[in-house]
């Protein structure tokens, strides 16, 4: 992101210089931050509301129940090397929190799971099959409800802010299943090579 950001600013300023429109560039640079502040304030209400709902779900034990329900299918999905299955609790918690859209709870559990799996095989430079699959699952979205997108659409005055939910879910499904399939296929290809 560092390189991308530097490139964005430099090409922007360069383009402004080429067009001889320095005042336009200056205006954009100085007003962009203000736009962001307004945007945050406009989004705050919806963020707070969804945060509240998630708080109730978490304290009701819904995350833990979902994590328990995921245990059996995930046990079958993950190609654990000996010792790696000790990360199962954290893996279930991470994915359950991700599904419900609780990024704050998902990341610590995910990092713990990665550390446990890395420790299981002794020192290694490369990720194991199970680690790679877990990584890909976290790089694909498994979130059930795109709350931020509902919020941004509501704030912009959409007729039906939540009508993107079904296509989003289907696109997420395609993405995650493709990720799992590719992961399994690549791991098998390496094994036979």
């Amino acid at each position: 992101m560092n390189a991308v950001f530097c490139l964005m600013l430099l090409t922007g300023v360069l383009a402004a210089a080429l067009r001889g429109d320095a005042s336009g560039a200056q205006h954009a640079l100085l007003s962009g931050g203000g736009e962001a502040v307004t945007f945050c304030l406009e989004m705050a209400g919806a963020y707070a509301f969804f945060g509240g709902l998630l708080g109730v779900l978490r304290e009701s034990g819904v995350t833990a129940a979902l994590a328990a329900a995921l245990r059996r299918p995930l046990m079958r999905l993950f190609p654990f090397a000996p010792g790696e299955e000790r990360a199962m609790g954290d893996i279930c918690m991470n994915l359950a929190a991700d599904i419900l859209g609780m990024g704050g709870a998902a990341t610590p559990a995910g990092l713990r799971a990665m550390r446990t799996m890395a420790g299981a095989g002794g020192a290694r430079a490369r990720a194991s099959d199970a680690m790679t699959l877990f990584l890909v699952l976290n790089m694909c979205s498994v979130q059930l409800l795109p709350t931020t997108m509902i919020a941004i659409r509501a704030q912009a005055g959409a007729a039906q802010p939540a009508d993107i939910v079904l296509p989003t879910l289907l696109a997420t499904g395609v993405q995650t299943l493709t990720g799992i399939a590719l992961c399994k296929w690549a791991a098998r290809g390496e094994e036979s090579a």
Partner: protein
Amino acid sequence: MQVGRKGGRKRVIDSSYLVPALVVFTIACGVRARIDVYGAFVRGVREGLLALLEMAPYLCTILSATALLRETGVLRALEGLLAPAFALLGLPQEAASVVLLRPLSGSAALAAVRDVIAQCGVDSRAARLCCVISGASETVFFTGALYLGAAGVRGARHAVPAAMLAYAAGVLAAARLV
């Protein structure tokens, strides 16, 4: 929720029931678990607001940069450059910034989505598609760096290519669905 294409005449369920239904479900869960629903809600609100506050500096940074690219015409040039490829894939060219930024940064993609909404209108196909793409994906590179760093492992093997191909599949699926 609309399933039909263009205008979505075929309405399966009215999506405005979704959030109220979620409220009923959540309250039911809270009451069943006999927790302090009010207190839990307030704690959740605090977490939601803190998450937004944490994201704010990134949004400020990236919105300055995207505003610059939009004002100076760089963004339009980039969209024009990618237009043939995007047209081939059934994607509107206005979605270029979102499609390119989403795997890199969540806040950058959010800033880009906001831009597309402002330029094309919130209920335009481009804006809806950008919302679907953004909502259906993750920050591939950031997540990868974070998780590999935590494990102290350098070789990610096929993780990044697999995730990026999966992302491409998700984007193409979104283009067919919206």
